C-alpha cells in the first residue's frame, strides 16, 4: 500500500525534480511528512509563499525545467497567487502544489478553505482539484506535460488532505499523456515558412524582434545563426534580453517605452519585422495595432492566440521556435540584407551612443551595471527587479552567455531576490546577482533569511534612491511632479539589516568604491548585500 503523499513525492521524482520551494501548513502536512526522509528532493523553505513561486520561476528559467512550489490551503495558497500570475504572464513552466481541506468538507467554508483553483483560473494554464488518490499519477504526468510543452505556463494541483493520507494498492507513473484537447502544434506550416522566406527575400529593411519565446524554446543559438547568415539586425523585448550577446554587432538592444532609441527608430524604418516568440504588449510597442500598417510582419509563435492579437500579421507561423528557425535557416539560401540598410542601422547605433550624466557623491547605476557585466563570469545570471533598476539593467548589462531574469510580462516588484534563490539552486556554479531598488528590496528582504539558512552565494545590489523611482518619474512627467506616496525616507539601515540576517554588507556612494567591492565579493562564495546610494534624479533612460 502507498499513500497519496508518497505518490506525490514519487511523481516528482519521476519527473526528475531535485528541488522544490515551499512553506508548510496543516493540509499539506502529509506531503511534507513524506518529504522528510527523501534524499532526492531538496526542499527550500522560503519565508513567504509568493517567493516560493518566484523562486520556482527563477529555477525554471535557469535550467529550462518546470519549477515546483508548494503551499498549504487557504492563506498559503492565496499567498501564491501573485507568483503564479507572474509566471503566467511571463510564460514560465511551473507546478504549484497546494494542500486543500478534507474532500468531505469542501465547500463548507471550513478553517483555511479557499477555492484556489477558482481564484487562479485566469492565471493558470490549467488546474486540477484532485478527487481521488488514484488520479494523482495521471494528474502529475499531465500537469508537467502541460506546463512545459506548447506555450509554457503554471499548472496548479490542489490536493485535499485526506487524499494525501489515503492509501492505494500500488504506484505506477504513466509513460504517456493523452489529453484530447491539448495537442500543441510545434512544427510550423511549411507553406507559411516558404511564404515567410519569400517575404524576407523581397524585403529591403528587415528586422528581427526576439522575445522570451526564443529563450524558453532553447532556440537562441539558431536565431543568432539565422541573423548572422542574413545579417538581419535584431532587437529584443524585455523578456528576450539575452537572445543575442549585448555587444553583438547585429544587436540593437531592447525596444519599447524604456528601450533604446536606436532600437525603436530602426523599428520605425523597417519594412519587414520578423517577430519571434514575443506578444508585443503595450510596453514593447506603443501602438502595436498600428505596426502592421507600416511594416509587413512575420509572426512566429507557439501560441496561435498571440498571432494577430496585438499586431497585424502578414505571414503567421504557429510553431516551436526551434523547428521554425531550423527551417528558415535551411530555406533562406544565401540571402543577406542590403548594404544600405546595414549602413543605416550602423549609423543609428552610432548616432544614439549615450552620454550618461553623473551626480557627485552618488553611484551612477548604469555605468556600474555595465562594468559589473565584465567582472562576472560569462555565464552569469542577473536577476533584475522592477522599476528604474530594471531598466538600468535591461539597457546596460552586457550579457554574454548568461541569462537576464526579470518579469517583463507582469512586472511584479519583489521578484528578483526569490528568483535568484531559484536560479542559484538550479545553477550552483554560476554567478547569480540581484539588482533591485530600495522599494522592491523591501518587498522580499525576508528572503535574506532563506539565503542565510542555505548559505546561497547570491550577491544583492540595492540601488537606493529613496524613491519608488519609476513611479516618481511618471509623476514628474504626467502628474505635475506631485510625488504622491513615492518617497521612501527614513529607510532602515540596509547594511545593519543584512548583518542582522548574518549576511555581510556594505554601503557605497561612488562607482570606484562600488567597483572595488564588486571585485572582492565576486571572489567569495558567501552572499553579500551591496547598498548603492543613487541620486533620486537619475533617470530610467537618457
Amino acid at each position, binding site marked *: 500500500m502507498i499513500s497519496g503523499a508518497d505518490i506525490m513525492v514519487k511523481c516528482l521524482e519521476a519527473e526528475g525534480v531535485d528541488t522544490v520551494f515551499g512553506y508548510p501548513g496543516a493540509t499539506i502536512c502529509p506531503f511534507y511528512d513524506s518529504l522528510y526522509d527523501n534524499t532526492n528532493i531538496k526542499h527550500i523553505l522560503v519565508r513567504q509563499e509568493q517567493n516560493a513561486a518566484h523562486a520556482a520561476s527563477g529555477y525554471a528559467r535557469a535550467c529550462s525545467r518546470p519549477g515546483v512550489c508548494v503551499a498549504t490551503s487557504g492563506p498559503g495558497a492565496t499567498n501564491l497567487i501573485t507568483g503564479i500570475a507572474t509566471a503566467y504572464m511571463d510564460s514560465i513552466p511551473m507546478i504549484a502544489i497546494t494542500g486543500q481541506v478534507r474532500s468531505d468538507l469542501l465547500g463548507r467554508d471550513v478553517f483555511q478553505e479557499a477555492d484556489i*483553483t*477558482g481564484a487562479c*483560473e*485566469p492565471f493558470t*494554464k*490549467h488546474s486540477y*482539484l484532485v*478527487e481521488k488518490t488514484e488520479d494523482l499519477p495521471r494528474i502529475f504526468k499531465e500537469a508537467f506535460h*502541460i506546463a512545459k510543452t506548447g506555450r509554457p505556463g503554471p499548472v496548479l494541483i490542489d490536493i485535499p488532505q485526506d487524499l494525501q493520507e489515503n492509501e492505494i494498492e500500488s504506484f505506477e507513473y504513466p509513460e504517456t499523456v493523452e*489529453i*484530447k*484537447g*491539448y495537442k500543441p502544434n510545434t512544427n510550423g506550416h511549411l507553406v507559411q515558412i516558404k511564404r515567410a522566406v519569400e517575404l524576407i527575400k523581397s524585403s529591403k529593411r528587415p528586422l528581427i524582434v526576439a522575445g522570451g519565446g526564443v529563450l524558453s524554446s532553447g532556440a537562441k543559438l539558431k536565431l543568432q545563426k539565422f541573423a548572422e547568415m542574413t545579417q538581419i539586425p535584431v532587437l529584443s523585448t524585455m523578456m528576450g534580453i539575452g537572445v543575442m550577446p549585448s555587444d553583438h554587432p547585429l544587436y540593437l538592444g531592447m525596444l519599447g517605452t524604456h528601450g533604446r532609441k536606436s532600437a525603436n527608430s530602426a523599428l520605425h524604418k523597417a519594412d519587414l519585422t520578423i517577430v519571434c516568440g514575443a506578444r508585443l504588449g503595450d510596453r514593447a510597442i506603443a501602438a502595436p495595432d498600428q505596426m502592421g500598417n507600416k511594416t509587413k510582419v512575420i509572426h512566429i509563435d507557439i*501560441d*496561435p*492566440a498571440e498571432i*494577430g*492579437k496585438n499586431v497585424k500579421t502578414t505571414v503567421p507561423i504557429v510553431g516551436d521556435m526551434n523547428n521554425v528557425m531550423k527551417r528558415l535557416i535551411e530555406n533562406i539560401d544565401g540571402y543577406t540584407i542590403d548594404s544600405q540598410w546595414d549602413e543605416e542601422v550602423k549609423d543609428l547605433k552610432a548616432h544614439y551612443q549615450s552620454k550618461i550624466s553623473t551626480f557627485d557623491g552618488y553611484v551612477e547605476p548604469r555605468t556600474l551595471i555595465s562594468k559589473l557585466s565584465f567582472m562576472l563570469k560569462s555565464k552569469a545570471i542577473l536577476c533584475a527587479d522592477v522599476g528604474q533598476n530594471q531598466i538600468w539593467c535591461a539597457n546596460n548589462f552586457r550579457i554574454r552567455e548568461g541569462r537576464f531574469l526579470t518579469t517583463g510580462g507582469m512586472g511584479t516588484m519583489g521578484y528578483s531576490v526569490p528568483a535568484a534563490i531559484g536560479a542559484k539552486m538550479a545553477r550552483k556554479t554560476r554567478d547569480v546577482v540581484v539588482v533591485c531598488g530600495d522599494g522592491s528590496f523591501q518587498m522580499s528582504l525576508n528572503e535574506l533569511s532563506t539565503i542565510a539558512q542555505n548559505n546561497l552565494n547570491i550577491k544583492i545590489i540595492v540601488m537606493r534612491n529613496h524613491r519608488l523611482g519609476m513611479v516618481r518619474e511618471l509623476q514628474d512627467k504626467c502628474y505635475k511632479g506631485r510625488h504622491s506616496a513615492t518617497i521612501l525616507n527614513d529607510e532602515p539601515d540596509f547594511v545593519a539589516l543584512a548583518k542582522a540576517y548574518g549576511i555581510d554588507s556594505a554601503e557605497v556612494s561612488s562607482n570606484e568604491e562600488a567597483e572595488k567591492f564588486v571585485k572582492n565579493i565576486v571572489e567569495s562564495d558567501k552572499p553579500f548585500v551591496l547598498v548603492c546610494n543613487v541620486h533620486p534624479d537619475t533617470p530610467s533612460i537618457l
Partner: protein
Amino acid sequence: MKYTLSILVENQAGVLSKISGLFSRRSYNIDSLAVGVTTDPTVSRITVVANGDEYVVEQLEKQLNKLIPVIKVKRLIEGEFISRELSLIKVHSSSTKRFELLKIAELMNAKIVDVAASTVTFEYCETAEKTQILIDLLKPYGIREIVRTGTVAIDKGKAEVTA
C-alpha cells in the same frame, strides 16, 4: 455581428466556469449558452451565441482552444446550420382574450401547454429570431414570465462537429 460557436469539451468539473469566465474576463458578450452531453458521455457540447466583430470572434475561438478541456471549437456558418431554442412563455389572459391568444399560437405554430383562469402558457421551439417575433406578438397581452433554454445548433447535411 452575431455568430454561433459549437464547442466540444471534456465533461469535467469546472469546465463551464472556465468557459464563461473566459467570456467575461475578455469582455466578450454572450447572448446565450447551452450545454448538454454528446453520444460520448465524457464529452459535452456547448453552443454559444454571441456578438462581436471578426477580430473578437477569432480571438475568442483561439482563446477557447487554449483551454485544456476544450477539444474542438467550430464557428457555424450562417445559412448552413439549423438552430433551435425552447421557450416557455406565460401570458396574462382574461377569458375575453383567450381566443386571440389561441389564434396567435396557431399562426406561429406554437403549443399551448397550460391554461388557467388568468394565464395561458406557450411552448415554442424555434430559432431565436422567430421566438422574438412571438414574444413581440404576445407583449401587448402582458407577459408574466419567460424561460428560454438558449440556442442549440447543428450543421445541415453531413457536416459535423466531432472530436
